[in-house]
C-alpha cells in the first residue's frame, strides 16, 4: 500500500524524471507501471499457457498503432498471421485493416524441428534480417516476439541460441524499439529458458488461477528497473475490449471529501440524516435480514439519483433487471424511464460466475466506461463481505477507495442472518463505510414488522431513533414507533395502541363532560335552595313586619287610650274612683 501511494504521487512527474515510457494503452497497466513499458527497451511477459501473454502483447501493438501512432511488428513463433487475426478479432482488433494501413506487420516464424538438420556452426542472422526488414518496412517503434522460446524446441544447439538471444536483445535496444518478449513459465523460474537473465528492464508475470472452481487472472510486475511501480498482484480481465487491469493499489486515502449532500430518496430518512441525506462520495451500507427492504432502499436511492439527472450504475447479484423493475413498480417506483434515458444501467450477474477479483475488475471497468455518480451493489455479500478470505476485505477496501477518489456515492446492501445483526466481520466493514443503515425485523404479537435506524453516519448529526419502516404502494414510509412499557410497538400492535389511546381519550372526555354536568346540576340545586331560602326569609320578614305593625298599632291604641284616660281624668278631677281602676288594667296588660 505504501508502495502504491508512492506510485500515485510520482505519477504526475514520473515521465519527466524517470526513464521514458511507452504507454501500452491497456486499461490499468499504464497506471501501475507509472506510464507504460520502458521505451526503447525490452520487457518480458511471462506466464503459463493460456494466461493471456499473446493478447497482452498484441494489445500493446494495436493500441500503440491506433492511439500512439507507433507502428508495430509482431513476430509470431507459434501461430500464423491468419490464426492470430482470428484469435484477436473477438477482442475487437482488426489486424487485417492495420496491416493494410501499414501500421502492423505480422511475421510468422516457423521452426520445424523435423525439417531441420544441424551441421556445424550457425547464427540467427536470418531472424535478425527478417526482423530488421520488417521494422524498416513500416517504420516500427514496437516489436513483439511471441514466444521466442519456440526456437529452443526447433533448434538443438542451446549454447548458440543463448548467445544469439543475448545478441538479439542488445540489437533490439540499439534499434530503439520498445519490445515485448513473451515466455512460458518454467518450473521454479520465471521462464523455462531463463530469459529473465537477458531481459532485465521490466518483467511482468501473468497468472491464471482457479480457486473454488472460479478462475481469476492476475498480473504482477516482478521488476521494473529505474521506476517505482505497484508490486502487488492485480486482477485483470480479458473481454470484448481487450485486457483491463484493475489498478487497485494505485489509490490511497487522498480523496477530497465533499460536503455536498444528496437525498436518499426517502423523505423520512433524509430527516434522520440531519435533514439533508448522505454526503456525496460517501459509502453507505444497508444491512438487514432477508426481506427487510434493502433493495427497496437502494431503488429509492437510484431513482433519486436519476431524477437529479445523474447516472447510476446498479450492480445486481440476485435479481434480473426486469425483476427488479417489476418489484419496484409495486412500490410505485418506476425505474424503466431512467433506463431508457440512459441514466440507469443495470449490470446483473451471478456472484458465482467470476471470482472476487474479476468482479472488481469488471466493476472498475464499468465505472470507467459509464462514469456513474451513484453506484448500487445489491447485495454486496459476493464482493467479499463476510467472506472467509482474508484478502477479500482488502480488495474491497481498494474498490471503495477507488470509488471515493472518483466522488462516486456507493450504496452497498448486505444480508445478515436473522439471529445476529452484528457479526465480527462487520467491524472491518464499519471502518470502510460512512453511513450504516440497519434494517431489522421486530416480531411482536404474531407479526413481523420492519424498523430502521442509523447505526452510524460520519460527519452529521443523525437521528438515534428507531423508525418503523413501511413499504407502501407509493414507496417507503418511515413513521415514529410507539415506545411504551412493553417496548417498541409496530404494525398492528401500534395500531392497537393507537386505538387504545383514542378510546381512553374519549373516555376522559366523557368523564369531563359528566363532571361538568354534575357541577351544573349542583349549581342549579344550590341556586334553587338559595331561592327557597330567600322566599322563606321573605315570608318570615313579612310576618315580622306584620307583627311589628300590629304591635305598633296596639301601642298606638294604648297610647290613645291613656291619653283619653288622662284627658278624662283631667276633665273629672273629683272623680278619683274613675282614675284608679285604669292603672291596674294597664299593669295587667304588661304582665301578659
Amino acid at each position, binding site marked *: 500500500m505504501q508502495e502504491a501511494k508512492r506510485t500515485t504521487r510520482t505519477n504526475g512527474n514520473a515521465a519527466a524524471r524517470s526513464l521514458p515510457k511507452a504507454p501500452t494503452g491497456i486499461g490499468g497497466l499504464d497506471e501501475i507501471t507509472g506510464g507504460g513499458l520502458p521505451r526503447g527497451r525490452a520487457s518480458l511477459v511471462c506466464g503459463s499457457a493460456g494466461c493471456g501473454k499473446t493478447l497482452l502483447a498484441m494489445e500493446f501493438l494495436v493500441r500503440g498503432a491506433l492511439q500512439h501512432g507507433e507502428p508495430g511488428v509482431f513476430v509470431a513463433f507459434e501461430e500464423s498471421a491468419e490464426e492470430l487475426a482470428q484469435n484477436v478479432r473477438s477482442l475487437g482488433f482488426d489486424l487485417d485493416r492495420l496491416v493494410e494501413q501499414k501500421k502492423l506487420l505480422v511475421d510468422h516464424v516457423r521452426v520445424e524441428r523435423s*525439417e531441420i538438420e544441424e*551441421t*556445424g556452426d*550457425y*547464427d540467427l542472422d*536470418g531472424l535478425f*534480417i527478417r526482423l530488421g526488414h520488417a521494422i524498416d518496412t513500416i517504420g516500427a517503434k514496437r516489436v513483439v516476439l511471441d514466444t521466442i522460446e519456440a526456437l529452443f524446441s526447433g533448434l538443438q544447439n542451446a549454447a548458440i541460441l543463448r548467445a544469439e538471444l543475448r545478441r538479439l536483445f542488445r540489437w533490439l535496444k540499439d534499434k530503439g524499439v520498445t519490445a515485448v518478449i513473451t515466455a512460458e513459465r518454467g518450473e521454479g523460474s520465471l521462464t523455462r529458458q531463463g530469459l529473465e537473465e537477458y531481459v532485465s528492464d521490466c518483467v511482468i508475470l501473468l497468472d491464471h488461477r482457479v480457486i473454488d472452481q472460479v478462475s481469476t487472472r492476475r498480473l504482477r510486475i516482478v521488476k521494473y528497473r529505474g521506476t517505482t511501480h505497484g508490486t502487488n498482484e492485480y486482477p485483470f480481465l480479458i473481454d470484448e475490449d481487450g485486457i483491463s487491469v484493475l489498478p487497485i493499489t494505485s489509490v490511497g486515502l487522498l480523496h477530497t471529501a465533499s460536503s455536498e449532500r444528496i437525498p436518499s430518496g426517502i423523505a423520512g430518512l433524509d430527516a434522520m440524516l440531519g435533514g439533508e441525506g448522505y454526503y456525496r462520495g460517501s459509502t453507505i451500507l444497508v444491512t438487514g435480514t432477508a426481506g427487510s427492504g434493502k433493495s427497496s432502499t437502494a431503488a429509492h436511492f437510484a431513482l433519486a439519483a436519476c431524477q437529479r439527472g445523474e447516472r447510476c450504475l446498479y450492480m445486481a447479484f440476485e435479481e434480473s433487471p426486469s425483476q427488479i423493475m417489476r418489484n419496484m413498480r409495486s412500490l410505485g417506483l418506476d425505474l424503466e424511464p431512467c433506463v431508457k434515458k440512459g441514466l440507469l444501467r443495470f449490470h446483473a450477474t451471478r456472484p458465482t460466475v467470476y471470482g472476487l477479483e474479476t468482479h472488481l475488475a469488471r466493476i472498475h471497468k464499468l465505472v470507467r466506461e459509464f462514469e456513474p455518480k451513484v453506484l448500487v451493489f445489491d447485495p454486496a455479500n459476493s464482493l467479499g463481505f463476510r467472506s472467509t478470505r482474508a484478502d477479500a476485505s482488502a480488495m474491497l477496501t481498494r474498490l471503495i477507495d477507488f470509488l471515493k477518489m472518483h466522488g462516486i456515492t456507493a450504496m452497498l446492501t448486505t444480508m445478515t442472518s436473522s439471529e445476529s445483526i452484528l457479526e465480527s466481520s462487520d467491524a472491518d466493514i464499519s471502518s470502510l463505510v460512512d453511513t450504516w443503515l440497519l434494517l431489522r425485523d421486530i416480531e411482536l404479537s404474531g407479526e413481523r414488522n420492519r424498523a430502521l435506524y442509523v447505526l452510524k453516519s460520519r460527519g452529521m448529526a443523525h437521528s438515534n431513533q428507531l423508525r418503523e419502516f413501511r413499504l407502501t404502494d407509493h414507496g417507503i414510509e418511515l413513521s415514529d414507533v410507539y415506545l411504551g412499557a412493553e417496548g417498541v410497538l409496530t404494525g398492528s400492535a401500534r395500531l392497537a395502541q393507537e386505538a387504545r389511546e383514542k378510546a381512553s381519550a374519549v373516555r376522559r372526555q366523557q368523564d369531563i363532560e359528566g363532571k361538568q354536568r354534575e357541577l351544573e346540576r349542583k349549581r342549579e340545586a344550590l341556586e334553587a335552595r338559595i331561592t327557597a331560602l330567600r322566599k322563606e326569609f321573605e315570608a318570615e320578614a313579612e310576618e315580622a313586619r306584620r307583627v311589628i305593625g300590629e304591635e305598633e298599632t296596639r301601642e298606638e291604641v294604648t297610647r290613645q287610650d291613656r291619653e283619653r284616660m288622662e284627658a278624662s281624668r283631667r276633665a273629672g278631677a273629683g272623680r278619683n274612683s274613675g282614675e284608679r281602676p285604669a292603672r291596674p288594667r294597664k299593669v295587667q296588660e304588661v304582665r301578659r
Partner: protein
Amino acid sequence: MKNTEVGDGAEAIAAVDPEVWELRLYVAGQTPKSVTAFTNLKKICEEHLAGRYRIEVIDLLEHPQLAAGDQIVAIPTLVRKLPEPLRKIVGDLRNTERALVGLNLRPAS
C-alpha cells in the same frame, strides 16, 4: 551474390533420382561461416550429385524479403527445394555425415 551453378554428369545417379536437385543456400554477406558452408556444399554435391544439382545462393543482406518465404531463421541454411519433401540443413555443413543424412543422401544410422 545470387549465382546458380549447374553441375555436370547428371546422368550418373539418374536411375535413383532422375530430377535435378534444387538446392538453395541462404547466407548473410560474405562471412566465414557462409564461405565455409558454400565450400562444403559444393564438395558434397560434386561427390554425390555430380551433374544434376543446382545451387542457388541467396544473400539475405541484399534480399531480406526472401527470408520469410523459406522460413529462414538461422544462417547459413541450406534448403533442399527438390526433390520433395523440403529439407533444411542449418549450419556450415562442417559435419559431412550429418549433412548427407539431412539431404537424405544417406540413411540415418
